[in-house]
């Protein structure tokens, strides 16, 4: 099963949330492809040594967010149109949390909205030079 998840149990981030974000990231990066089967709840619980109910909760969240679909008796699969909408949405979820933290920190340190916009624009220019 080409899915490599790790959880940091000692982190303050809930374990189900860590699983959700890693699966979303893997789907967005194409490590998990559309139609690919995820481990069963029990298997992933054993692989990570975490409570089965915690994994089940992560899978429910992933299903609600449209990243995976579960059919009873068959298992959980990465949702259909892998390349486009669903994985883009998943990627956005992952990135939003990081940006949220950075913006909070920037505001805390006294940067204004326009200061921050300058930083973000410069970063975007560096990473998306073709769209300048």
């Amino acid at each position, binding site marked *: 099963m080409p899915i490599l998840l790790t959880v940091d149990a000692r982190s*303050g981030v*809930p374990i189900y949330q860590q699983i959700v974000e890693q699966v979303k990231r893997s789907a967005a990066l194409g490590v998990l492809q559309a139609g690919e089967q995820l481990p069963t709840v029990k298997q992933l619980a054993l692989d990570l040594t975490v409570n089965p109910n915690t994994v089940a*909760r992560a899978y429910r969240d992933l299903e609600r967010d449209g990243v995976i679909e579960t059919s009873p008796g068959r298992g959980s699969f990465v949702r259909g149109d892998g390349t486009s909408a669903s994985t883009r949405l998943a990627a956005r979820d992952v990135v939003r949390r990081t940006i949220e933290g950075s913006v909070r920190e920037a505001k805390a340190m006294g940067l204004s909205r326009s200061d921050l916009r300058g930083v973000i624009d410069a970063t975007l220019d560096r990473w998306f030079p073709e769209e300048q």
Partner: protein
Amino acid sequence: MSIKISHLSKRYGALRAVDDLSVEIPSGTIFGLLGPNGAGKTTTFKCMLGLARTTDGTVAFDGKLLTPPLFESIVYVPERDVLYDWMRVGELVEMNRRGFKRFKAQRALELLQMFGIDTRKRARSLSKGMKTAVAVAIAFAREADVLVLDEPTSGLDPVNQRHVLNLMVNEAARGATVVFSSHQIGQVERAAERIAILDRGKLVLEGAVDDLKANRKIVEAIFPNETYSLNGLAGDPRVGRVDRSGRIVRVTALDGADEIARTLETAGGTGVRVIDLNLEDIFLYAVAPASATADVVEGS
């Protein structure tokens, strides 16, 4: 099988070892019991299993009080081994095979092999950790509905500790209810879905680990000078504790950290940040001496 502990108390003379403990453990959960030494964890287990007479209160399994027909469904691994230590490990397996209908001797032997235990050895010749492993191997071969494990990883090396945790996960996955205690908070944090923290016999905190982590945060803010007012937080039930150190204030939020962060900003705080707490932080906060949990939030 669900477990419901209602108003359980156990007194030894003047000592209240367990004091009015009420906890519900849903079927199929891994439940971690935490607490400092002498908090009443082992006494709670003994009362649950009828090994100590309760002073007050009840323990029910699927709504029924403990009676001999339930013994087959419940297994207990005590902290201090009560193995018949003159027996050989293989004889202990055989004894359990005869004693319990559901006991899977083959499974026990597989688990003993996994732990690297020679079944020809006498139990008393084993190290403390290996004795724990024998008790665990036999317990997990019982196919019980309820497993009560008092420090089931004590004395084991990290590899075997992980084996024990995975066995617990496996039991929960097939629907068994696992209740365990451990001083290693990292293990509880990893494997337990719900926890209860006992301190001096009393329940001080109970809940789902992930919910506690999602809700409990520290909100830190820096104020321009030392005369600031936090009246906005006075009487807020979501504020667990306020620690002031000069211009820096740290608020332990039981919930609603983002709103508390905004309140601090409104009060003139800068550099406001929300800090995640892990289970160890939450544990230490829960069992902190009362003097350290001043909840004064009026301005100075």
